[in-house]
């Protein structure tokens, strides 16, 4: 294999999660690279202002409380809600942006759609860098590009959901997206929208797809399917996936 220079790395925190960038090629740490990185971060901060469910004054929080309608929101809100509707249909209702809340009232939570969608969108600034490969991670969901098919792929380690100090798999990716859903770091924040209960019988789901928008949605939807995660993923077009079960065994769908 060709021994190449290690990639140049940049890290910032936005939306309560680390955003990590690795660059290799022509623009890794010059003015062009730094301004592209700044544009990525600006885009993510703007998304946070519109969609954050942790901010009471975000458009999505106000929409969820019924104080405003979709037409009062930036057009991206309608785009994300449409993605959520499609995910709802294609997951048989396991994934929903309106999920059952603690008190039984539905809660609008677009987080399952927004993170991957936002990172995919922000990566457009990196795609504009000529002769430069990138791997951008938003809190563990990532999108990569490699221009030269002879170059080494990006090597993506998949965190072990039971012991996060270890890896459960390595996925070599030239260009594409990798997203993982599970409850390792945040506890049981994901629910099966059909029952309102946290999924059982699955430890984590990793999905590889062309776009991070759909890798993220499918990882979340498959995780919500619990023990049926692998069966549901097999019905999905153009996806590869890794399911880790609670006993640490894995199923690869490829």
């Amino acid at each position: 294999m060709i021994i190449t220079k290690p990639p140049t790395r940049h890290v910032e925190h936005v939306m309560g999660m680390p955003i990590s960038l690795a660059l290799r090629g022509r623009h890794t740490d010059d003015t062009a690279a730094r301004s592209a990185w700044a544009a990525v971060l600006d885009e993510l901060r703007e998304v946070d202002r519109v969609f954050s469910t942790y901010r009471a004054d975000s458009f999505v929080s106000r929409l969820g409380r019924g104080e405003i309608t979709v037409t009062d929101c930036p057009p991206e809100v309608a785009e994300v809600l449409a993605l959520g509707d499609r995910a709802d249909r294609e997951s048989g209702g396991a994934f929903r942006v309106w999920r059952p809340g603690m008190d039984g009232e539905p809660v609008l939570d677009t987080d399952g759609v927004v993170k991957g969608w936002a990172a995919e969108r922000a990566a457009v600034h990196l795609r504009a860098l000529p002769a430069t490969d990138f791997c951008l991670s938003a809190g563990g969901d990532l999108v990569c590009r490699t221009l030269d098919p002879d170059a080494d792929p990006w090597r993506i380690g998949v965190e072990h959901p039971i012991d996060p100090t270890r890896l459960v798999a390595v996925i070599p990716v030239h260009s594409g997206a990798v997203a993982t859903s599970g409850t390792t770091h945040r506890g049981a924040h994901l629910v099966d929208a059909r029952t309102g209960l946290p999924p059982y019988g699955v430890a984590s789901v990793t999905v590889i797809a062309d776009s991070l928008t759909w890798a993220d949605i499918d990882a979340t939807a498959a995780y919500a399917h619990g023990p049926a995660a692998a069966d549901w993923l097999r019905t999905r077009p153009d996806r590869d996936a890794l399911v880790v079960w609670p006993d640490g065994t894995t199923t690869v769908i490829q």
Partner: protein
Amino acid sequence: MKRIAMWGLGTLTALVLLFGYHTSTSGATNATTVATGPTTAGGSTSGGASGGTSGSTTTGGTTVTGPAADTRWGPVQVRLTVADGKITNVDVVQYPTENRKDQQINARALPILTQETLAAQSADIDMVSGATVTSEGYVESLQGAIDQAGLS
């Protein structure tokens, strides 16, 4: 013998994935479905029935280069490094080079390598995918360690 068995299992698991990764479940049950993996004795290696397997011993452990396996994307060949009965590194020495257009378009052009015995710190990886790493947990996370080691 325990050490040998562990090595054999890890090697077989990787080979199983290469030979049949349309849908593979890793683990002991699958390892038994392939009878052609390399075997090992006393720190040296011998090629399995599949042929084309070579091994060598270095100070960093023993390396085993598997045969090139034909996949739907072209030939794939892996090299495993084993020390103290554990796989410490996996290199893919040959990736499919045919259908380059497909490779660029298709995000799923390379096999997923599951390695339950791979110690995280010895894996040469660029980025970590995991269940929503938060800023609070970042410093202690694998991603944090990788970024820290590589920040310019």
